[in-house]
């Protein structure tokens, strides 16, 4: 069943392409496997019929903007829109080349949670209202969507796009009173040694495939520091120090820029809770600078600018 949201995205995309407002539209097409959708670029208004939007469209489409020269229409959920704002601030996209189709979002299904709930391989899945209906080894199961949301979606307070040219649906109510940093506080409460162990454990099994980095809209550096050879900052084996260096440095590089879109965690093929590396920095930016990334168009992130009254208690 096609939702009204999908219908509206198709209509807007077809109109933008046939009126030549844009050269191409970036959106999603139906996935080839359950609980997934594939990012797609279309140039022909006829192809708008293939676009979809549902709770399986978790990929952050802002990741596909850097380097594009054409005029692009892009379907943007709340987090995508915040990364577009960040791209605009960081000169990775030009506002005049973008037509942002705002997509109100009620959160994305975490395919691992669905898999876990079903106790194995998910052979089909569809969305019905507030439920995910999925078939697994024991047959079809109805799951409340809120139970299988991605962790970042559970505490998201920007479900509606912060910037758009046309909305594809009525704004959804934002979540109120969510505790965004319970997990960070739990880690902060640990003794140094236990905290180190915590990070060692969540990092174990990392295969350095860089899916986290490459799924992240912030990671557009032409040459990532892990790929530099002159000088070579980081070794390439699975040495723990090198793996740590990669994750920690990447997290710091995203400080004040990360929108907690969850792309990194979603992409990791071995289930590393990658957001554990970035979230403390999110919390710090909020507490120290009153800053949330990608919410204010045109404002540079706090670690990108210097102000005389910047807090400096952490410099010792």
């Amino acid at each position, binding site marked *: 069943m096609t939702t009204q949201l999908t219908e509206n995205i198709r209509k807007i995309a077809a109109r933008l392409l046939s009126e030549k407002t844009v050269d191409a539209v970036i959106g999603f097409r139906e*996935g*080839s*496997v*359950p609980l*997934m*959708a*594939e*990012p*797609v*670029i279309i140039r022909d208004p006829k192809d708008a019929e293939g676009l979809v939007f549902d709770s399986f469209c978790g*990929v952050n489409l802002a*990741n*596909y903007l850097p380097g594009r020269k054409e005029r692009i229409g892009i379907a943007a959920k709340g987090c995508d829109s915040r990364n577009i704002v960040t791209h605009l601030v960081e000169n990775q996209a030009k506002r005049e080349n973008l037509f942002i189709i705002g997509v109100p979002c009620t959160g994305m299904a975490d395919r*691992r949670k669905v*898999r*876990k709930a079903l106790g*194995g*391989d*998910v*052979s*089909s899945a569809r969305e019905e209202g507030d439920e995910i209906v999925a078939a697994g*080894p024991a047959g079809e199961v109805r799951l409340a969507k809120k139970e299988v949301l991605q962790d970042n979606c559970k505490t998201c307070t920007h479900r509606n796009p912060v910037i758009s040219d046309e909305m594809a649906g009525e704004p959804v109510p934002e979540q109120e009173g969510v505790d965004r940093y319970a997990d960070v506080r739990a880690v902060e409460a640990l003794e140094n040694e236990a905290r180190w162990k915590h990070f060692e454990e969540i990092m*174990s*099994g990392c*295969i*350095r*495939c*860089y*899916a986290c*980095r*490459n*799924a992240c809209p912030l990671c557009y550096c032409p040459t990532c520091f892990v*790929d530099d050879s002159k000088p070579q900052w980081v*070794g*390439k*084996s*699975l*040495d723990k120090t090198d793996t740590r260096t990669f994750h920690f440095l990447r997290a710091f590089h995203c400080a004040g820029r990360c929108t907690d879109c969850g*792309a990194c965690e*979603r*992409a990791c*093929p*071995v*289930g*590393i809770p990658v957001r554990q590396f970035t979230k403390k920095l999110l919390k710090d930016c909020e507490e120290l600078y009153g800053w949330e990334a990608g919410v204010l168009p045109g404002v540079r992130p706090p670690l990108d600018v210097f102000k005389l009254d910047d807090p400096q208690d952490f410099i010792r």
Partner: protein
Amino acid sequence: MRLLQLSHSDLTRGVEALRKAFRVEAPLPERDHFVFGPLPAGAALDLSAANTRLSAKSVIYPASEKMLRVSLDPAKEDHHVYREADKDYSPRAVLGIRPCDARAFTLVKPNFDNREYRDPYWVRSYECSTFVGLACKSPCSTCFCTSAGGGPFDTAGLDVLLAESGEGFIAQVLTEKGEALAAAAGWSAAAPEGAEAALSAMKAEADARIVSRIETEKIPGKTILSLFDAPFWDDAAFACINCGACTYLCPTCWCFDIQDEAHENEGVRMRNWDSCMFPLFTLHGSGHNPRPNKTARVRQRFMHKLKYYGDKYGGGIHCTGCGRCVTHCPVNIDIRRIASLMNGYEPDNACAL
């Protein structure tokens, strides 16, 4: 081939007996999945995984391994002379490997073991291993092994294949290595009459459960250049983020990087898995990159799997249909979709250059 009957306790006792003569590697739980690794002392064999998240290739060919060592200390007599790194190639039993992963080794072998060169690390590691497979009675929806040349009961690359049956297993002992392992495990009870027929029936049932397919039949008849120049690559590659998840999870991807590392006066030459998805993979020292963009790299991956490999080594595709890349690709690039684009592609003018 010989058929044995094993009870669950035969299996458990057998695993303990094997530890005396073999290093035992098996699927181990990690977070929400399983990976192959040395079975810790006292740990029971857990065969509940549909398959391991990473393929079993890491057992033979680790993600990162020392190849050579060298002393950089001028006081040492053989300073700056490379030596082989110390390795353990004592007998190893790989338990619970799925047929797709075992078959993958037979596809990878021509790369590492051919008439021109033998890669001593891969060859020795492979040769010291005895593979005890576990037939797939409940394949996943993303499994397409039957159209990739294998199957849920395929025996290629295996020494023993276990199939769950009733209160235990029917074990097919397939090779001399398999016989030696069965002897070491104390498995000797012949399967009852009718086991062979039961096995055939189970195999037929499992085969029928694989409903997903990869279409490649027409690819061998097309030229490399016609497929290479096909118009669909840009769109097919659009979603790809050029991470290495597909290649690192894949049982047949074999590409590696060689890196020297030095700590004070000790140097090692390492080999680490590498990926054709990474720009650095082909970057020349001059800055020129023959595969300069995402499209070129995605095309390389699928052309290698579905065209170059078959053309070079004589038939077949370089894929066992395990479905890992399909299931775990963060952006839903699907080799089955790409294969059908390639398979169905007919250049407008077959004579065009």
